[in-house]
């Protein structure tokens, strides 16, 4: 167990380091066209020669051009370790501030979606495994394969077109209306939930199908266990066997993959948040890439990778904590 944890941590650390390095050199390799236009801007507004303006612009974004690349690289790594992610080129505020504002929205939507999808999916999965040969089984299979075939951003777009544009039941974009004050008050929470409904559905609709299949498979394997037959032989009520014996044991395996699903949600958040212009991390990520806003892009990339890695680690720990066989085996 100990060695496997150290190994995982080491791999995670190397991954983050590599990802940082890759994005650093990728962005440095590029023609600095955005800095060029900014320098022109600065030259005009401040009445200084272009060379000076260019140097200043580069200095603001920590890209002092005179220094050799390796020095810039170490300066960048040092800043990142100290938690300084630089200044956004487009928004003119620090990347830390943008990310701090964006994270809660992404976590809000993703955690509610996971919770909903998991509860509904595993309940349906257990019922289907328990009562085979009902109409529910083929229906659920069809649902799972159709939602699996549809990329999540298409589900999001269809939801947007139907419920926001045509039926006007939900807002088209944003996380809350201007007429509510952000904070811990009921109108704001209600308004935020109202705005988050379609994004949550866009995650939950495909999520349910996956959970049904995992839970069904897990429950079927539990149904073959001796303790279930023993419970039946003891004449316990069906409902009690289904919930306490089958459900509780079958849910362990899907439960451990919750964290992984959360990680993959973070990775794919850009598409769904962009469709709903929902101001989470993914939305700003898409914006940063479209605008070639490198500091913001690097900051968000680091956070996304960090989140996914943390989720994977968490999944491993959960799995080890729940399944004693993994704990012993190492």
């Amino acid at each position, binding site marked *: 167990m100990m060695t496997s944890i150290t190994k995982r941590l080491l791999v995670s650390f190397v991954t983050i380091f590599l990802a940082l390095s890759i994005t650093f050199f990728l962005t440095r390799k590029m023609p600095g066209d955005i800095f060029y236009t900014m320098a022109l801007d600065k030259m005009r507004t401040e009445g200084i020669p272009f060379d000076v303006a260019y140097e200043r612009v580069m200095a603001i974004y920590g890209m002092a051009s005179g220094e050799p690349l390796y020095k810039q690289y170490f300066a960048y790594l040092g800043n990142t370790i100290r938690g300084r992610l630089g200044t956004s080129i487009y928004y003119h505020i620090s990347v830390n501030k943008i990310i701090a504002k964006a994270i809660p929205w992404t976590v809000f939507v993703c955690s509610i979606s996971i919770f909903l999808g998991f509860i509904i999916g595993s309940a349906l999965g257990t019922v289907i495994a328990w009562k085979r040969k009902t109409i529910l089984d083929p229906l659920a299979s069809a649902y799972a394969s159709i939602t699996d075939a*549809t990329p999540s951003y298409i589900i999001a777009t269809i939801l947007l077109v139907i419920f926001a*544009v045509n039926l006007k039941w939900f807002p088209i974009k944003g996380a809350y209306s201007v007429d509510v004050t952000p904070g811990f008050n009921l109108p704001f929470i209600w308004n935020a939930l109202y705005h988050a409904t379609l994004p949550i559905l866009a995650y939950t609709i495909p999520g349910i199908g996956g959970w049904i299949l995992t839970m069904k498979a897990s429950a079927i394997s539990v149904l073959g266990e001796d303790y279930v037959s023993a419970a039946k032989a003891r004449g316990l009520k069906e409902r009690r066997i289904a919930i306490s014996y089958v459900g509780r044991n079958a849910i362990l395996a899907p439960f451990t993959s919750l964290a992984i699903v959360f990680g993959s949600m973070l990775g794919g958040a850009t598409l769904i948040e962009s469709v709903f212009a929902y101001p989470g991390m993914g939305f700003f990520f898409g914006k940063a890439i479209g605008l070639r806003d490198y500091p913001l892009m690097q900051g968000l990339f680091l956070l996304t990778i960090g989140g996914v890695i943390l989720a994977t680690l968490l999944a491993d720990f959960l799995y080890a904590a729940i399944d004693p066989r993994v704990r012993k085996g190492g």
Partner: protein
Amino acid sequence: MKLIFGETSNKLGKAYKDIIGFLRFFRGNKRALFGLFLTLLFILMAVIGPYVVHLDLTTRYSERFQPPSIKHILGTDFVGRDIFAQIVHGARDVIAVAFLAALFAVAIGVVMGGFAGFVSGWVDMVLTRIIDVLLVIPSFPIMMVFAASFRVRDPISISFILAIWMWAGLARAIRAQILSLKEREFIEAAQLLGLGSRHIVLKELIPNLMSYIIVNFVRTARGALTASVGLMFLGIIPYSPTNWGVMMNLALFQTGSIYVPRGLFYTLSPMLCIILFQYGLLCVASALEEVFNPRLRAYE
């Protein structure tokens, strides 16, 4: 001569039997047949379509957002261009990227995984570490960063950028399978017989992994399709105006076609095509899995 001839005809006979078994399975399985039909339909559309359907990208504002008619099967878009022609011409691009990316990813995955599993030692250790790291990096964000940084313009480079981040899972599985195959008697026998590594890899290992590789090819193609259209949809690599993802991007983010009730055909056509093609590939993939792995069938 006779011996060689006999061997070939034997092989042909085996291939013939395989194909017949395949077709029989697909005939008995309605879902698999439907999937195969959809997949072939779209491939046909991509290969032959552009020669049959003429693409005219001149703008005619007076004809914008026309409903479907005989002249325009799917109606017209926001500047009066035929939607069906765009879908047909876009299919080539979308499907080419999906299949090329899958081809690259599977090739890299098989070579890397095979190398790691067969050679072992420090080569295996290094490759396994690389695979571990690649598996942890979330693929879509890094594909976005790469696509934005390299300003790709052609199907081959975009396929390559997708493939770099898609081979690791397959490589790990191939490595594991080769490690387990190496313990089996027939490989040991081949080694004892002094047959070279080349023979063992090409004639003994690869054929045993072929079914697995084929299924993974279809799966990777699905992933590449979703990812490439997603990148186009976000407007990161808008290199072809008729690509389905670019059409979606134009409908949703650029032209506001989704807010026009008559623009519904423009918004929905590319999305429906993606869903249908994806569904076709999904059915084919699970059918192939059932053909190669009869245990799955017995369970149902």
